[in-house]
Each structure stands twice: as C-alpha cells, then as structure tokens.
C-alpha cells in the first residue's frame, strides 16, 4: 500500500469510515499480531495487544502524521509501548524467569496432547512415520532452541532484532519505534546477533 493511499484511508477513518478502517486492519493487523507474539510469550495477550493497537488507530487516527512516519511505524510504536508496559509490569509483579514460562507452556502443550489420548496412538505408528516424526522433531528442537535463545535476549535487543529482521523496518524506523538513535539500534542489533550466535553454539 502506497503512503499517499494510506494517508487518505487514515483521513477517512478519522471521519468514521468503517470501510477504510477495515482495509487498514486487513493490511496491518497480521504484522502487528506477529510482532506482539514475537515479543511476548503469551499468545492471547499478544492478540489483545494487537487488537488494542488497532483500536488506537480507530480512536486516535487524527494523531497520525503521515509526513513524519509510515503508518506501520506508528502502529508498531503503539504496540511496542504496550508490550514494554506489560513486560515491565510483569517483571515487577511476578519475578518469574522467561524460561520458566516457556517450560510451563511446554508443560501445558504436553498435557493437551495426553488429554486427547494421542500418546497411546503414537506408539502404534508404523516405522516410516516414526522416522518422519524423528526428522521433524529434530527440526522442531532446532526451532524451539532458537526460539528459546531469542526469548533469552534482553528485551531491547530482542525488540531491535524482531523489528529489523521480522517486521522489515529500516534502522530509522526501528529507532523511531524504540525511541533511540540509529547508532543505538545498530549497537543493539550487533549485541543481539552476537548473543544469539553464542547461545546457539552453546546449545549445539
């Protein structure tokens, strides 16, 4: 979506046009939801934050200044503030390590698997299927170790990495979202990638 077209849609949203809003939601909700999910562990909370961010667009669209930033940058900033707000509150209220939360979630996933009676079925699968499942579980293990490594990064490093790598924002846009200089963003990215590399090497 071009910047001019987007600015027009935002202007229509300010006048209460629900069609223009639906078009903007269609375009931006997936990115905001995936951003929140990469920053927070809790999926439903990430969804709440994504919806809340779009509610901000509906109610405060007049505050968006298209000459200053792209709409995606503005929305990422709103979502980022909410995520950080939550993480800080969580840190104050429940000093639980992130790996414990991940372990809890994994525990929940295992429980769900057992409740649905899949455990006994897995044992009776033919050899070929178990070979496939071994390969896929190796891949799953690699992905989950990467996910864990990413989650163990300090919040500022993780945010910079996610915004640059997954949300495809430029370094200036990332700087706008996290309220820092481009030099600081670069430094955060350097440290994030270096830490990630070390963690992945230590896991191998």
């Amino acid at each position, binding site marked *: 979506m071009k910047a001019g077209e987007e600015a027009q849609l935002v202007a229509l949203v300010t006048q*209460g046009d*629900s069609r223009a*809003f*639906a078009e903007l*939601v*269609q375009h931006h*909700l*997936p990115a905001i*939801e*995936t951003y929140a*999910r*990469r920053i927070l562990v809790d*999926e439903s909370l990430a*969804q709440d934050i*994504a*919806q809340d961010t*779009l*509610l901000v667009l*509906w*109610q*405060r669209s007049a505050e968006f200044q298209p000459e200053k930033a792209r709409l995606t940058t503005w929305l990422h900033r709103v979502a980022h*503030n909410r995520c*950080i*707000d939550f993480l800080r509150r969580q840190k104050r209220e429940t000093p639980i390590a992130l790996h414990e939360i991940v372990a809890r979630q994994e525990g929940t996933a295992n429980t769900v698997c057992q409740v649905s009676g899949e455990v006994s079925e897995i044992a009776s699968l033919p050899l070929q299927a178990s070979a496939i499942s071994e390969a896929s579980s190796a*891949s799953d293990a*690699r*992905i989950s170790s*990467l*996910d864990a490594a*990413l989650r163990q990064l300090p919040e500022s490093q993780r945010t910079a990495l996610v915004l*640059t*790598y*997954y949300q495809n924002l430029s*370094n200036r846009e990332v700087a706008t979202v996290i*309220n820092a200089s481009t030099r600081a963003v*670069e*430094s955060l*990215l*350097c440290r994030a*990638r*270096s830490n*990630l*590399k070390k963690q*992945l090497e230590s896991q191998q």
Partner: protein
Amino acid sequence: MSPEQKLYERAFEIIEAYGADRARWPEQERSAIEQAIVKSPKLQAHLQVHAALDASLKSLEVRPRLSPEIVAQQIVAHPQRITRAQWLQLQLEGLTEWTAAAFWKPVFAASFVFLIGVGAGTVALEPVEDWSQAEHLSFALIGEEQ
C-alpha cells in the same frame, strides 16, 4: 587509520548488525560495503557465518491467527471518541515514555549528588569561630612558616 581500514571495520560492523542480507544494510553505505567484501576474504567468511544465522532466524515462523474482518467489525462497534479513562491512560503512557527515555537520568543523578552535597554541607559543617585552631591544624599539616 586508513580509509580502507575504516571501510573494512564499518563493513564488519554492518554485517554483525544487519546480517548477510544486503537489502537490510543502510542504503547509503550498501555499495561501498559490497566493494569492501569483494576485496576481503575475511569479510566474505564473516558474511557466510552471518548468512547461516540469518537462515536459522528465517526458520522461526510465526503465523497470525486473528481474522482482520472480525477484528475490524468488533472495533468499529466502539465509539470513536475516547473516554476519560482512556484519556488518562494516554497521559500516563506519555509520562512512561518520557521516563523511559535515558536523558533525564544523568541530569537527575547530578542534581541528586549536588543536593546531597549542599544538604550535608549545611547540616554538618559549623562555621569556625576560633581561627587559632584552624591555623594550628594548617601549621601541623604544611609546617610552620620560618
């Protein structure tokens, strides 16, 4: 440091920060970095290491689950004017954002130390009335004038 050495170090930094994908590098520096990589086998090796990390990162996929149509329908049911509670939350957010910025911290630290110093000086130090004692002490420290 020679300009070539500078460029080499900058290229190293850029790869460390943004990875091996050229599209992510800062646009104004991209062509210079590419030229530096062509000339340096060390940078080429560094690029390969980061390409592997990029590939790992790429495997970590997150799929959105919310339906944009449903979310849009639910949101437009809300009034467009913000409530007082939302206005208050907005102000608090602004305040949080301001406190999250780092610039006020050194200013606060410096003024805090200054105020502690002024406070301690006012409370703990009594003005010297008998100067002969102070004189005696200074002679003891630096020696009596001959």
